[in-house]
């Protein structure tokens, strides 16, 4: 296990180091699919240059990173490339996520009907999952370009990975701290609070029942740790520059979307063509859209908090205000964990073809609009829409497959109709 992982790490680091040395690095760090106004490396350098000129980086509208990033890169400026590669490597420590699967196997073994044994994964299959997860993340072209562009979403991904790792291990304090750090960087990981709480409750065998005091006790403990760490981080940021300027510059920017630079998300063109009168209304609708799937999903998936984490991360990556391909690669890295659902997926061929085609068309249509002048913004916008639809289809397909497997695990795999013939399952 260690040898293939080490080989994988060496290959990944070699690819990144090789790309850093070529002129492609400059080209990639300018691409709008890879960097956004929130996490571009050029803007980090600009913020630090403004700090050198004794001007607050938040006095202009160029720098939208949190003050922690200023702290970090003030010292690591020369080692930036190594920092980003290290963040990617740390992600692969997620192989420990496989631990939970072994637990699940033990829990479920006595509940299922006999003919579903083929649905349960054998330990030999699960042995290779961590390696596959690491491979899916490190060798994913999206991750590679994101790292070469020195986009700070690589750091965000590493923090979320550490959060998931500490949740799996059962350490509530670390989980709360990393979640606070992830929420501090961009607001959206706030929704991951609920699945983390559900997982920790499940681990401690506390039933999720609003009438039980143990539930409330644990919930309040966890929330207190989370909010406390968040408060500490915000106060530390205040003391860095001595002002609260960073709050509107970071969080106000994420929520109010003033910058309409094109990216792979849905917000930019929508708000470029929005009537001023309705701007605030649609802004609220789009931002609520990211958060409001939490409650229904957590009610439906309360026994499966790990899948809930995957769903939440995917929904954030699709519907956030400034998505980049780095956010995509985060949830795509988790797909090998659910490769036992492959037999129930319905649209996987279509989705993968559409994603490949869109990834190829993004740079082409950008070039035609911005450089050749022979296309206009509608072409790029259309590919953005298609890319989002493909991702939504992917996520809902995995959700369908997961629910269907659960149904089979409780009701048996080969179902029969009343007259004894083979049945078809539908959603009613």
């Amino acid at each position: 296990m260690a040898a293939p992982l080490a080989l994988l790490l060496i290959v990944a680091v070699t690819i990144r180091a090789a790309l850093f040395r070529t002129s492609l690095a400059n080209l990639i760090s300018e691409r709008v699919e890879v960097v956004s106004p929130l996490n571009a490396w050029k803007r980090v350098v600009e913020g630090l240059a403004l700090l050198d000129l004794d001007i607050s980086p938040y006095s202009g509208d160029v720098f939208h990173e949190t003050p922690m990033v200023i702290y970090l890169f003030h010292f690591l400026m020369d080692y930036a490339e190594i920092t980003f590669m290290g963040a990617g490597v740390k992600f692969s420590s997620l192989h420990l996520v496989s631990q939970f699967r072994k637990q699940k196997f033990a829990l479920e073994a006595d509940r299922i009907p006999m003919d579903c044994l083929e649905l349960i994964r054998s330990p030999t299959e699960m042995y290779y999952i961590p390696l596959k997860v690491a491979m899916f993340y490190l060798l994913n072209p999206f991750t590679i370009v994101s790292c070469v562009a020195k986009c700070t979403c690589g750091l965000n991904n590493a923090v979320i990975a550490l959060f998931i790792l500490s949740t799996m291990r059962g350490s509530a304090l670390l989980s709360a701290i990393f979640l606070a750090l992830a929420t501090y960087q961009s607001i959206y990981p706030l929704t991951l609070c609920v699945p983390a709480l559900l997982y920790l409750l499940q681990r401690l065998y506390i039933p999720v029942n609003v009438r039980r005091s143990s539930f409330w006790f644990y919930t309040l403990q966890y929330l207190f740790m989370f909010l406390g760490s968040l408060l500490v981080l915000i106060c530390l940021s205040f003391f860095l520059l001595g002002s609260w300027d960073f709050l509107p510059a970071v969080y106000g920017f994420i929520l109010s979307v003033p910058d309409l630079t094109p990216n792979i998300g849905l917000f930019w063109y929508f708000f470029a063509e929005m009537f001023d009168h309705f701007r605030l209304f649609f802004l609220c609708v789009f931002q609520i859209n990211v958060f409001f799937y939490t409650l229904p999903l957590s009610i439906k998936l309360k026994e499966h908090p790990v899948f809930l984490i995957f769903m939440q991360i995917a929904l954030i990556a699709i519907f956030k205000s400034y998505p980049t391909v780095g956010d995509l690669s985060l949830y795509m890295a988790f797909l090998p964990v659910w490769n036992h659902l492959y037999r129930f997926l319905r649209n996987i061929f279509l989705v993968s073809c559409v994603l490949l085609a869109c990834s190829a068309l993004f740079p082409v249509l950008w070039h035609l609009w911005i450089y050749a002048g022979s296309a206009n913004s509608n072409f790029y916008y259309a590919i953005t829409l298609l890319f989002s639809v493909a991702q939504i289809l992917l996520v809902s397909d995995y959700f369908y497959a997961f629910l269907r497997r659960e149904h089979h695990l409780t009701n048996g795999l080969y179902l029969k109709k009343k007259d004894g013939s083979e049945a078809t399952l539908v959603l009613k």
Partner: protein
Amino acid sequence: MAIRRLKHTRTHAHACMLQTPLDDFQEELVIRPLHSGDIYASFQFRTVWDADFMGDQKVSHYRLFPKSLGQVITKFSVRELHISFTQGYWRTMQWGQPYLPSPPGAELWVWFQDTVTDVDGTWKELTNVLSGIFCASLNFIDSTNTVQPSASFKPLGIGNVTDHSFLRYATLPREIVCTENLTPWKKLLPCGSKAGLSVLLKSEKLFHSTFHSQAVHVRPVCQDPQCRTTSMELRQTLNVVFDLHTSGQGKREWSLFKMFSRTLTEACPLASSSKVYVDVTDNPQFELSPATPLLTQAVVLGDRRTYSVYDLTQQASFGSSRSLNMLLRWKAADGEMLRPLLHSERYVAGYGLQAGEIHTLIYNHHPYRAFPVLLLSAVPWYLRLYIHTLTVSSKGKDNRPSYIHYQPSKDRERPHLLEMLLQLPPNSVTEVTVEFERALLKWTEYTPDPNHGFYVGSSVISALVPSVVAMDTNSTLDRPLFSSFFPCKEEASYFMRVYTEPLLVNLPTPDFSMPYNVICLTCTVVAVGYGSLYNLLTRTFQVDEPSPGLAKRIANVIRRFRGVPLL
């Protein structure tokens, strides 16, 4: 008895003299032939208003000073006002230096008195009022194109203000100058356009020129040598360059009639002095008629020039025909023009609509002297400058500015302001480069012709340029040694302002016909997401039992009545 009467008349005359108002009006025209064959005419009308603003007097008496401007100055507590409207770009390398430089479009900068509490609000009202007075769209001046320079625009009148929060500067590079701007400008003159030099200001000829600039400068000046009282000075200037080739005629010959289609008949009766100067430093090349015995020498812009003077207050200038029409006829080709010492260019580099670079080139043509210049650039917010990419290089080597004042822009609120103090090495080109990124604006923020592009106002370069001609370190004149060790000629350096070209940059545009379609399509994608998740959340898996046919269902209903088992 006789002595008593004499004393009485003397005191009476003295009393009359005290009551005489001290408003003063002077007009002059300078004609300077340029080396490229064109001719440059510069009008200056100077009205001095005997009103003291440093004190607390309320002013209500207007004699020569225009009432509209006077009311504006008193109401908005303006200390200095400089406004110019220019059509065309001054070609420094072909024409030399102008007497009063101005950038293309409209430029307005104002110093307010320190009694003003809300400078931004007063600035907004002032621009709207001036827009009405000059029939120009100065109401487009708002916080997105107004800056507060920290070093470049020091007051030109008296007063040692150092608080730059009372200074505002704005340019409108897209502003066009036409007859509608000239007419209210002429109305501010005491003689209007009826007498004096202003009869020459006819728009059909004035706008048929390569360069046309009209300006109004108001500033406080001293009334007496001790400067115990101050008065307001209004200078109205009009600079125009007539092109040799577009004015017809092959040979090089200029006259007042050819330039303005009018001749001078009388001086303005309200003027205390009315003169026409013709630059005859290159006299062997051309002949000037009618000849005049009056000659003056002056050091202008670092160069010693000789002028023939026509005094219009003297009846003799007009001759027997009662009209004055100067004629300049060239006989020989011109020699070398004195190369301007400070010169600059600016352009946008790069390709595509995503990013670009602004390059500013500043030339120092002085053979052995280096001097510092202040560069002011105000870039609109939709071109996002990256200050870490700022490079300044002279002669291929890095040249760090000794003073940088940078104010980053805020989207839709204020522009970028970059001011730098650069040291220019002698005989060199200094290149200032900065990268920018183009923003995508909301569809309502584009002008009706978005593919024309967006203008970036001219950069301003202010410098004290050491002059070549007046500096004379190797003098052989008969002077005592103790006075000639340090170079201390009065005309050793002169203040100059150079404006670069305005830039025109294209921004990426969204499709303006698509707002409804975009809203529908994006909401459809969000609805697809919502719909699929809603289905999966609210529905459960069930075995699909096909519903029985119609016959069977009716049979089942009957069977239920009969109490018999169903099909």
